[in-house]
């Protein structure tokens, strides 16, 4: 019974924490421009994150090796260090974007000034991370994120074109103009990248060690990574559908988080709007903490120094100093006034570029019988993992050219 409860909680937490600022806005924009035509990108992204999240969890449990230790071991010191620097810069930019998103949502809820909310949010989150245990933080925010279900309910209530949804499972190979084709592929890469953001696998593998998972928990690892991701991807589909239903007929391209948010409550009354705001807030708060902690995990794991949220802060000084610095650095960036959605564009595109350097070591380690023993990848795991890695690499090569040619996705 306790085991079932633990697995259920894990799945719900993964569901509630699946989306972040980038996914909310990018997916809604993709729906607003191309209707349901990016369903296949969501499907491929979901398959990718399930495969690699399960591998990360398995490596962490069996080999006791979190992601960045695998990066160091497989890529070597120099390339590994470059990957660390790039990943942590991305974590910092993403953290700043997410903090900015939190300030926007709180402003929409309370009317208080954004800059005050930026400082208050950062201080409050810092205190929460300092005071509370890993499991409590993860579960509270993950379960609160279940309020995002209002987006799915709204999408169904507005009667999506189910045939169109199904047709979107195949890539549309051509669009009417070159500009539209480039935009189409920009958003495909963006959705794919947003679903596979590195900080998610860094955080997940570190979390498996924080929660003292053993090989007995590999079943839970599989259930959380697969079911949690499938249910979470349904929220992403809902965002796409809302973009298609509400914005396509009106020729609207939603450039604001507030536009994407109220789309989640259009059929209903004010309480639904507050629920949609609450759901987005929980998910984005979770992303702030995940990116800050991922930065700290990455540094300590690469340099083989002590780390752990559940350890006394003074006993892991580098870990503590790094996550505090991540919060402060993100706050400083956010206070400069740079728009969170601009930062999100940067993090999604450059995140794609760095992705192969994180995912390749994961696949190599999970396929290494010397490390994994009887829990090594099966042939199917290797084939699927290899296919995803090829797609990640192709998307990485295309990301920056597409960003430049489309002016960061401007229609």
């Amino acid at each position, binding site marked *: 019974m306790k085991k079932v409860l633990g697995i259920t909680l894990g799945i719900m937490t993964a569901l509630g924490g699946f989306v972040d600022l980038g996914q909310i806005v990018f997916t809604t924009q993709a729906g607003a421009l191309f209707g349901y035509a990016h369903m296949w990108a969501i499907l491929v992204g979901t398959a990718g994150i399930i495969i690699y999240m399960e591998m990360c969890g398995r490596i962490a449990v069996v080999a006791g090796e979190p992601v960045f230790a695998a990066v160091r071991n497989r890529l070597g010191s120099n390339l590994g260090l470059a990957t660390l620097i790039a990943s942590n810069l991305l974590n910092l930019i993403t953290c700043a974007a997410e903090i900015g998103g939190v300030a926007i949502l709180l402003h*929409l809820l309370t*009317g208080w000034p954004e800059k005050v909310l930026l400082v208050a949010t950062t201080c409050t989150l810092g205190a929460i991370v300092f005071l509370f245990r890993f499991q409590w933080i993860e579960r509270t925010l993950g379960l609160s994120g279940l309020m995002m279900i209002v987006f799915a309910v709204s999408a169904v209530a507005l009667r999506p074109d189910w045939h169109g949804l199904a047709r979107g499972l195949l890539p549309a190979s051509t669009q009417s103009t070159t500009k539209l084709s480039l935009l189409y592929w920009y958003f495909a890469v963006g959705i794919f990248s947003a679903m596979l953001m590195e900080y998610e696998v860094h955080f997940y593998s570190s979390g498996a060690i924080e929660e003292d998972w053993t090989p007995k928990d590999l079943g839970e690892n599989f259930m959380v990574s697969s079911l949690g991701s499938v249910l979470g991807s349904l929220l992403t589909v809902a965002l796409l559908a809302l973009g298609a239903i509400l914005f396509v007929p009106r020729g609207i391209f939603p450039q604001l988080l507030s536009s994407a948010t109220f789309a989640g*409550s259009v059929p*209903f009354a004010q309480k639904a709007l507050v629920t949609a*705001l609450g759901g987005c807030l929980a998910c984005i708060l979770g992303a702030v903490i995940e990116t800050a902690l991922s930065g700290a995990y990455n540094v300590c794991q690469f340099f083989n120094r002590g780390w752990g949220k559940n350890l006394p802060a003074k006993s892991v000084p580098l870990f503590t100093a790094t996550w505090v610095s991540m919060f402060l650095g993100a706050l400083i960036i956010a206070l400069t006034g740079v728009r969170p959605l601009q930062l999100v564009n940067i993090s999604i595109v450059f995140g794609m570029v760095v992705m192969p350097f994180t995912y390749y070591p994961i696949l190599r380690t999970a396929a290494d019988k010397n490390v994994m023993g009887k829990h090594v990848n099966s042939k199917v795991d290797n084939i699927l993992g290899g296919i995803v890695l090829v797609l990640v690499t192709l998307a990485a090569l295309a990301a920056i050219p597409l960003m430049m040619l489309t002016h960061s996705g401007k229609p």
Partner: protein
Amino acid sequence: MFVDYMRQGRATRHFADGHLEFLIRELADSATKLRNVAPAPGGEEALRTLRVQLAALAEELQNVRKMPDNQPALAQAKAHLQQIQRVLEQTNSSL
């Protein structure tokens, strides 16, 4: 679309004010970009129209922000906004 949402009482006060504030900010950015644009030959009139309509749009949104609960004012604002949208679409198609 958002004005209809407000007229139906679905937006909270803070959300309506905040969303309109963000929309006005985006318009101000667009207006700044338009001010710095040199028109292509034959496009001066269209550019002038765009600038005028953006200013009208920003003013209308400011009015809506001041009277979020005034149903007649919101209805009037919706009509004005639809008019601005028609002019912008005509101008866009002529470019």
